[in-house]
């Protein structure tokens, strides 16, 4: 019987270039938050650029869309990191640094067979599925989850 991990994609539009002073707190917190994720229970993998160690330089969906993608052993593990760790404080301030203009849906979760990794193309397709069909077994959210196959 296959076991599954949960993959997540979140996208946003930065309000300014990362070098801008208004983004300083976001940039300053990156290394710590990524290290926190790496050490969190149930963490499996996160997308990163080989130079920077994070995904902030990647623009596969267009010049103004930043992304973050990761894989976790369970939805509970993901939720614990996102909402019950120091990450919550950054999330609280996200509107200082990011907006979601034109992105009706900006967070999607989906199940992948354990031991595989998601691609950005697949991730975007899941986000589109969420937008088209609403939360379901193929694409869902932290607020409305579906069990693994």
């Amino acid at each position: 019987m296959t076991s599954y991990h949960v993959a997540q994609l979140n996208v946003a539009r930065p309000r300014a270039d990362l070098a801008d002073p208004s983004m300083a707190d976001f940039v300053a917190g990156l290394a710590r938050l990524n290290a926190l994720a790496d050490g969190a229970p149930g963490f499996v993998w996160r997308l990163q650029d080989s130079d920077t160690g994070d995904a902030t330089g990647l623009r596969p969906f267009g010049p103004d869309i930043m992304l973050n993608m990761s894989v976790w052993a369970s939805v509970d593990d993901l939720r614990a990191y996102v909402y019950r760790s120091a990450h919550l404080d950054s999330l609280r301030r996200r509107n200082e640094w990011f907006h979601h203009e034109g992105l009706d849906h900006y967070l999607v979760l989906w199940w992948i067979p354990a031991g595989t990794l998601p691609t950005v193309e697949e991730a975007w397709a899941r986000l589109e599925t969420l937008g088209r069909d609403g939360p379901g077994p193929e694409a869902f959210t932290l607020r409305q989850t579906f069990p693994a196959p």
Partner: protein
Amino acid sequence: MVGVTAPDGLEPGLDTVAALHDPVRRAAYRAVAAEAGEPVGRDDVAAALGVGRTLAAFHLDKLVDAGLLEVTYARRSGRSGPGAGRPAKLYRPTDAEHAVSVPPRAYRSAAELLAEAVERAGADAVLYQVAREHGQTAGGGTAGRDPLTLLAANGYDPVRDGDIVRLRNCPFHRLAEEFPPVVCGMNLALLDGLLDGAGLAGWRAAIDPTPGHCCVAISKTKNR
């Protein structure tokens, strides 16, 4: 069938809440709830209340019948196997929330719609500013200069842990579970405003999640 609003009418909430009418029973509930999720036994509750064990057990079991407490069994001494003794019957609050409103009101349904709208509109900063202002007004109205009194008077359940005050009750619990950044941010701003309004410059509220507590903790600022 609940519909889009879910008013907290008399059924089924009233019977549950009414179970707390008796003062001894209410004290027994509070004694268990004060343990913040740690199961507690009949004898400890009896001692806390200054009543006999049989009476404590009677009230605790009534609270279980009402759905306010649940029972768990544990071996207190860490022994196991035959001859280890009967497991102790322990009590702790259930996860359920109970509300009664007369006439029936559905403020939580409205709160969910408003929270989602704030999130969708990206209006977090406005909400935080509003919350801060409300906190400042509430803090300005209190005579107490001690943070624990101030917090307890404003619906939180503070407990001191050295130079940190943690909150065992989240007044917005279910809403915070659905909309964590927005509602926790709102709560932080409210507490920040409360401390500011009460003139407690030596204390600072910050996001600091720990299991079983509100995600906001209050700590002494360094130069005090």
